[in-house]
């Protein structure tokens, strides 16, 4: 049964929006949070295990120090207070993908508390998102439900459990209730999530690939009649794993809740699921006070002691943060706001910077990644990063152009060769024998032939109408298999007309 929805503009006019995000970021440590089992994506099911990650009787957890360091770095990036003493607690609940039937998380003594993140919106507005905490916990395994209609547990014939992911370190970043966003709530949520992704990538603590589940968010939304009213009942949409999905979830929940409130219906405190196919959220389990995880400090682990000296050490290792870096590169590359946004939207900042580092000019690098290569990526439905071409390849092609060894057309053909897996630009050039024809005799012969074949064009050129010049140049290029330099051709044509 389709839910009634209010128009978005009406809903945000009539109600004050409060939302919050609980973002799970999977850390890219070599080993799991509490044992030396390897962490890697896509391994054979149930191969990345130790007695600890399988929760075998007698096994004990030992904290991965690297994971704690990653958490400290994230805490610093989010302007959090880093607790000198933090503690792991057991969150008790039975579920097949939980080897111990409790998750080791942090409860009343998280490592990072009370921070904020300034996110920049499309129009340059900066919105401050308050952070409640960023705590460390371990992930559960993965259930695969077989035989059901849509992979959900309902109606499944049987389920398989893969414990490879069990014990992978996560940081859960919990915002405080975000107020004052109004109708920009979805946009702020999206910008916040992208900012988190950029930060964790810059810190090198997570691959942050949403499609692989490295990052996912629980989205809380509630409405109230006005900004000074108490919070309304919230819905919690679990495990949304795309930026668009998060934005759409907030939008949808605002519209759905507004419609219900308008009809005098109550909002149920429940967990919901975002359905990408129908672009709606669906009701799940009712949340109630009966949800009791019986948290208590994990007696198998001692308290984490993080000294001021260690925090200073981590601080010294902090790279430039994404927002600062963007502003710096914008200045260095002389970009307009719009140009920068195009780069960010294309997710090409890193690639362009790498290309520049490899020797290309900023303009040249930008031209390739936003032009030819973006088109190729779009056509294939992959990200720029996934294209089989590296920043070094692009820089090499740019150098060949700068050295006068390739023209634009040959350069494009060279890149096409790289994309087709023919090797490095150098190899492609050698393989096809691409080179600019510098022999003016050969070009002159081709121009003569073109003049002969197109007498009407020659007439127009001679009368000063330069528009059909391309016909001649095109013919010359065809004759020389694209290896002539367009400028040289134009020069010869002009000479012949005037002569």
């Amino acid at each position, binding site marked *: 049964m389709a839910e009634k929805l209010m128009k978005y503009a009406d809903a945000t006019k009539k109600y004050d929006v409060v939302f919050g995000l609980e973002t799970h970021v999977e850390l890219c440590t070599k080993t799991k949070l509490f044992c030396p089992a390897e962490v890697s994506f896509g391994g054979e099911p149930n191969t990345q295990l130790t007695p600890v990650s399988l929760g075998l009787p007698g096994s*004990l957890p030992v904290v991965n120090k690297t994971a704690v360091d990653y958490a400290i770095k994230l805490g610093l990036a989010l302007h959090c207070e880093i607790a000198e003493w933090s503690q792991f607690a057991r969150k008790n609940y039975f579920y097949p993908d939980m080897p111990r039937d409790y998750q080791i998380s942090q409860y009343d003594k998280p490592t990072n508390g009370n921070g904020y993140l300034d996110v920049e919106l499309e129009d340059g507005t900066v919105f401050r998102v308050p952070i409640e905490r960023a705590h460390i916990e371990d992930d559960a395994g993965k259930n695969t439900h077989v035989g059901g209609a849509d992979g959900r547990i309902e109606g499944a014939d049987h389920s398989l459990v893969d414990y490879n992911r069990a014990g992978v370190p996560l940081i859960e970043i919990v915002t405080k209730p975000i107020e004052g966003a109004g109708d920009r709530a979805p946009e702020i949520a999206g910008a916040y999530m992208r900012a988190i992704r950029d930060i964790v990538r810059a810190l090198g603590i997570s691959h942050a690939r949403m499609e692989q589940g490295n990052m996912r968010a629980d989205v809380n939304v509630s409405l109230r009649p006005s900004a000074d009213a108490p919070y309304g009942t919230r819905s919690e949409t679990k495990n949304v794993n795309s930026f668009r999905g998060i934005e759409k979830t907030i939008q949808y929940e605002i519209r759905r809740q507004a419609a219900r409130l308008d009809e005098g219906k109550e909002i149920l405190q429940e967990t919901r699921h975002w359905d990408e196919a129908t672009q709606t959220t669906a009701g799940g389990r009712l949340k109630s006070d009966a949800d009791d995880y019986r948290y208590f400090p994990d007696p198998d682990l001692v308290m984490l002691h993080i000294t001021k000296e260690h925090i200073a050490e981590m601080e010294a290792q902090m790279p430039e943060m994404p927002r600062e870096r963007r502003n710096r590169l914008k200045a260095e590359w002389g970009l307009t706001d719009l140009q920068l946004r195009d780069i960010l939207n294309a997710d090409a900042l890193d690639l362009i910077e790498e290309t520049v580092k490899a020797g290309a000019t900023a303009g040249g690098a930008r031209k390739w990644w936003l032009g030819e290569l973006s088109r190729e990526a779009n056509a294939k439905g992959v990200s720029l990063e996934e294209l089989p071409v590296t920043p070094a390849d692009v820089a090499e092609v740019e150098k060949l152009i700068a050295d006068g060894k390739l023209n634009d057309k040959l350069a494009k053909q060279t890149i096409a060769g790289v994309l087709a897996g023919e090797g490095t630009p150098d190899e492609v050039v050698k393989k096809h024998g691409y080179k600019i024809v510098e022999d003016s005799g050969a070009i002159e012969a081709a121009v003569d032939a073109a003049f002969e074949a197109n007498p009407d064009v020659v007439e127009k050129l001679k009368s000063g109408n330069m528009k059909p010049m391309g016909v001649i140049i095109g013919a010359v290029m065809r004759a020389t298999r694209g290896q002539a330099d367009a400028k040289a051709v134009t020069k010869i044509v002009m000479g012949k007309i005037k002569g």
Partner: protein
Amino acid sequence: MTEATNELVKLSAAEMGAAIKKGDVSSRELVDAHLAVIEAAEPSIKAFLKVSGDVAREQADAFDAKSADEKAALPQLAGVPIAIKDMIVTKGIETTAASKILEGWVPPYDATVIEKLKAAGMPILGKTNLDEFAQGSSTEHSAYQTTHNPWDTDRVPGGSGGGSASAVAAFEAPLALGTDTGGSIRQPGALTGTVGVKPTYGGVSRFGAIAMASSLDQIGPVSRTVLDSALLQEIIGGNDRRDSTSIPEGPRPMVAAAREGAKRDLKGVKVGLIKELSGDGFQAGVSARFNEAVDKLKEMGAEVVEVSCPRLEYALGAYYIIMPSEVSSNLARYDGMRYGLRVMPPAGVPQTAANMMAYTREAGFGDEVKRRIILGTYALSAGYYDAWYGSAQKVRTLIIEDFKKAFEQVDVLVCPTSPTTAFKLGEKTSDPLAMYMNDIATIPANLAGVPAMSIPAGLSDDGLPVGFQFIAPQQRDEVMYKPAAALEAALEEDWNGPIWKDLKAPWLDGLAGSAK
């Protein structure tokens, strides 16, 4: 080697180790002798859930095949066989914690203490019985069998480590490992006339000890002499990076302290009688033997004073909140998903994972375990946490303070280990509270994390052993070994031999022939 099996197995572990080093006996001969005793004794004792004879013989042969130099580099107990409480995981040997829920589970890894025993060349005779998941004080809560006290087979051996204690008392093994959460090594020690030690919390790695209550659990030695326990504790102790609660420092000089104690000079040693753990509630015969032993300490030069630990009154109450709370969480993993028992719901009940877990746990856990899981689940529940778990933790802090203050006045504290001698099988099974009272004198050491040991103090008027407990400051385990060894030596002189010379062990009668 011409010594008869029934004489060979009565040697202390230290004597066996020395005999091996001298070449008088081989590890294989010791293993065979003990396996023979096990075969003869088990029908009446039932200490072992599993006898790993083949593994033990293989280990003994491997040890015997070592060169003299290799052997010389090993500890004094090298080659001496040992029994393991079935709460400790052993690679390739079924480990059940005496629960149906783990029936048939063969661990793919060794506990740290097992690795250490193997490295020391000590063959593993088998896995000993216990109360299910170490929850009980009589070993009657084992899902498999009831262990009998060698001193009177109509009586319990104590618990939860009744299997290890009985095996050592009955000469089925010279040594055993136990686990002690509230007295599970010491109280069976008291009831079977053996020595049982709970080391400082964190002194012996818990990695591979099946968790009952993680903040209280500790692996420790079971033996017939104080020196044997010291030798064993030095082997199994020390830091383990796989246990976050493990103490960084290595084992204390316990063997040296025990040897020093055997000289029976306790001048300069200050002994504190815990006022709250004597007199009322203690069986007359227990109090009598205890007081006589205290007099012995005085005779050897110790200064004995009474000290008060007023908060011990609340120890039992705090223990029965903290322990079940941790139990409820630690035992959650036995859900039928990955190992052990799986019981599918009957026809007509939805065949879901949740229902499978419920039916598995209903069928797999015994009453005492269920009782504690329910208690702990309740104590940790939202709205009750502060009143129960929170308060209990505060009591724990106060008890730690009490001990600290006491140890400012004295070197070592003493009290009877158990209020009574061994009780009849079935006597207390229907009264959990009466059963819990057994641990009143042993629980405080677990709550405070301090080391404690029980040694035999003689026989009560009923002819059954009485236990004498020493408690030492944290990370000072050697401090209790000295007076314990002194008292042992003094008492043995009085008795004209060790306490077990009075033990009738009919299962040994048929083993008078040569061990060879």
